[in-house]
């Protein structure tokens, strides 16, 4: 903001005056974004640690809770999110090549897939509320037992631990998706106005890194929450 008018005229967004080259500016932005993602890795890492501990300690409850989740919806959502990562990668590519319309199209597609994911998640959450699977005073849980199967010995009290972990992890993941959709909206407005060019598309690239990170979290959440004990 303290740029003199002359400096502003010679240094645009693609090369601010404190960077030597465009490459250096881009690398600095990437490194900064990765440092932020490191804090995100540790944030989700804490929850994965809680998951690991409680899963080891209360395996039967985690297995029974996992069976009560809709594997089909979880799988479809995984595919939806992976496709949205592809459209995001294509959006960054379009920005690199300076194709404004394609960039807008892929941003819109990414938002549609992101919103689809959240919609499916809402359906799943609704089912959990209807079945009283939400931890709290109204918690109740009945095992679905197929013919010829013996129900797992579970404790209703520790059963809530699985759903606490489930809601904490998928809830924080969903919050990240909502923030991601906000970023996409911002990028869409800016790109429609022609703010990005092959010389300067850093915001698109950084939002892409964020979006792919959120995708990676789900890549782990899907098998860890939905597929604990589907065999037999």
């Amino acid at each position, binding site marked *: 903001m303290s740029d003199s008018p002359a400096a502003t005229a010679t240094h645009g967004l693609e090369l601010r005056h404190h960077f030597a080259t465009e490459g250096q500016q881009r690398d600095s932005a990437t490194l900064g974004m990765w440092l932020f993602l490191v804090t995100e890795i*540790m944030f989700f890492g804490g929850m994965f640690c809680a998951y690991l501990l409680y899963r080891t300690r209360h395996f039967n409850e985690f297995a029974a809770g996992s069976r009560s989740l809709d594997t089909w919806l979880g799988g479809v959502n995984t595919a939806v999110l992976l496709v949205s990562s592809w459209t995001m990668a294509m959006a960054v590519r379009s920005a690199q090549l300076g194709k404004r319309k394609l960039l807008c199209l892929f941003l819109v597609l990414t938002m549609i897939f992101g919103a689809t994911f959240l919609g499916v998640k809402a359906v799943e959450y609704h089912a959990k509320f209807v079945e009283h699977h939400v931890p709290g005073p109204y918690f109740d849980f009945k095992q679905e037992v197929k013919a010829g199967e013996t129900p797992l010995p579970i404790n209703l009290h520790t059963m809530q631990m699985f759903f606490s972990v489930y809601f904490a992890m998928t809830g924080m993941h969903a919050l990240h998706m909502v923030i991601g959709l906000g970023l996409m909206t911002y990028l869409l407005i800016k790109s429609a106005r022609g703010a990005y060019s092959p010389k300067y598309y850093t915001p698109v690239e950084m939002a892409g890194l964020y979006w792919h990170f959120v995708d990676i979290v789900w890549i782990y959440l899907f098998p860890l929450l939905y597929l604990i004990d589907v065999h037999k």
Partner: protein
Amino acid sequence: MSNHDNSEHHVISVGFYSLIGITLLIFTGITYFAATVNLGQANIVVALAIATFKATLVVLFFMHVKYTSEKMTRATIVGALFFLMLLLALSMADFATRSWT
């Protein structure tokens, strides 16, 4: 922090992005079928191995880490993974060696 002059952006082809995308979808299917086979304790190991393979593809190609010229970015990622492993390993070591029943 050198060679900034060489770090012009690397544009990956649509075909290659699609190949990565399809591979990710196929391995999601494999994750599911691997979970339907009873491998006992090995089920979680297989699930985590497939998830890690998928995550690696996303990081290297969708997140362009394979093409970055900045070595600090790679050092940062490796450092993050190291501290994540430290968190999980030491917590589990504590858990496993406690005298609770």
